């Protein structure tokens, strides 16, 4: 069965619900090495995205609408990063009402590219890219959704041992050690929802 616009609408609803449920935990994580608002940004962004996607004809339109809605609701760092990620996903999905499930891992790879591009980020800098990049690598190498998610999670776990060199936490120097990057943690949650819908 193909992945349809209905399926994507449902996925964004799940993403919104998940971010809402995790809001305070993500804020607490961001409080340790950032400004304690990451959960709020992700909740607002995904809520806006979920409102924007129903009743659109193509997956591409949906992802683009989600990108725009997320960005306008949030700003912050997460806004441009996820807006760019979602616009890349739109391109990958293309102007069609459904796509074969076998092609969906390419969405993850596209999103990771968008984040790296917008954030001028590389793996190892203790950002969300440390979850997205290994997930994308797994996706590109033909891994299944469980493997993609597990790659993201290992990547996010590894951020605890990194010293941040990009984003707000970079100013903390060694004080950023020992805490996971909140953006990498929320990235795993997003990828987990993709996996649940598609795996």
């Amino acid at each position, binding site marked *: 069965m193909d992945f349809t616009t209905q399926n994507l609408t449902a996925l964004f609803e799940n993403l919104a619900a998940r971010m809402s449920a995790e809001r305070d935990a993500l804020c607490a994580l961001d409080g340790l090495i950032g400004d304690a608002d990451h959960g709020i940004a992700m909740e607002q962004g995904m809520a806006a995205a979920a409102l924007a996607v129903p009743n659109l004809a193509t997956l591409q339109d949906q992802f683009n609408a989600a990108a725009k809605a997320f960005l306008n609701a949030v700003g912050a760092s997460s806004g441009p990063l996820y807006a760019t990620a979602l616009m890349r996903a739109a391109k990958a999905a293309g102007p069609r009402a459904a796509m074969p499930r076998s092609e969906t891992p390419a969405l993850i790879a596209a999103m990771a590219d968008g984040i790296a591009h917008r954030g001028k980020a590389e793996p190892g800098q203790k950002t969300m890219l440390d979850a997205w990049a290994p997930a994308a690598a797994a996706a590109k190498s033909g891994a299944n959704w469980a493997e993609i998610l597990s790659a993201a999670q290992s990547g996010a776990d590894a951020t605890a041992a990194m010293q941040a060199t990009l*984003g707000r936490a970079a100013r903390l120097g060694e004080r950023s050690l020992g805490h996971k990057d909140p953006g990498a943690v929320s990235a795993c949650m997003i990828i987990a929802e993709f996996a649940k819908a598609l795996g």
Partner: protein
Amino acid sequence: MAPTQKLINDGNHAVDEMLRGVLAAHPNHLTLAAPRAVIAKHGPRAGKVALVIGGGSGHEPTFLGFVGKGLADACAVGNVFASPPPQPCVDAAMAADGGAGVLFMYGNYAGDVMNFDMAAEMLEMEGIEARTVLTTDDIASSPDRAKRRGVAGNVFIFKAAGAAADKMLPLDEVARIAAHANARTYTMGVALSACSLPQTRRLNFDLPAGEMEIGMGIHGEPGIRRGALKPANAVADEIMDAILAEMNAPAGAKVAVLVNSLGSTPLMELYILYARVAARLGAADLSVHTALVGPYCTSMEMAGASITIMHLDDELTQMLDHPCDCAMFRVG
């Protein structure tokens, strides 16, 4: 933990309700160009470079309060501690544009850079030239000035740029003066308590009594290190040692000083700090041309203070003395 004590309604609407209050309270100064894009009533005009500032909310009177004739022409308003998205930046710029180009100024944070850069790209498509000068005055945040955060020094730096634009200088000159002002501005702060976001109403970090965060920014992010809470003079000395060493101004030079409250530190404490700052400047044979003391760039209810010194030259002195009339700041 119990929610922090705030006079708000719904945390999700705090910024929009605040904005409503600001516009209602200052109808002679401010008006709305678009949602979350505030414009000065008497600032923008044909042939004038438009100075557009912006950033997250929760720093009031920064940024909103510095919109007005002689200072910023417009401001994009973000969520609490969150850069505004590109759209209000574009809206603010288009509303303020006088055909002589737009200068974006804001603090150097990853989020702000991404959003304002997207805005600048969008403006380019409209045929409007947008330049950017980031503020990077927080000397504690990195040894490398280009990587530093922009904090309370914003006040002086925006002021200088706003004066240059108000004098109808061309975009190149306004941008040069803005960068020059930034390069000569040095800030460092300490926090004595955390703050909390309206949505979560939880303290964003844990600071035991008797300790302080040194090298604190303005978003409740932890400082550079944590140390014992010291007497005001020792705190002022530590900050002034760092600033004076970096600034390296010759004897006889003039400076502007801002002793800023991060939120809940009252004027009494700020003036105690100022007394020591003045003594230290006097001992270094530096003379104070302008002194500001008060809450100018805050982190909501955070306790703490920052000290900003701008090393003046004749040009910057002239820019700081140039009149401005904003809802929350006036000169001349």
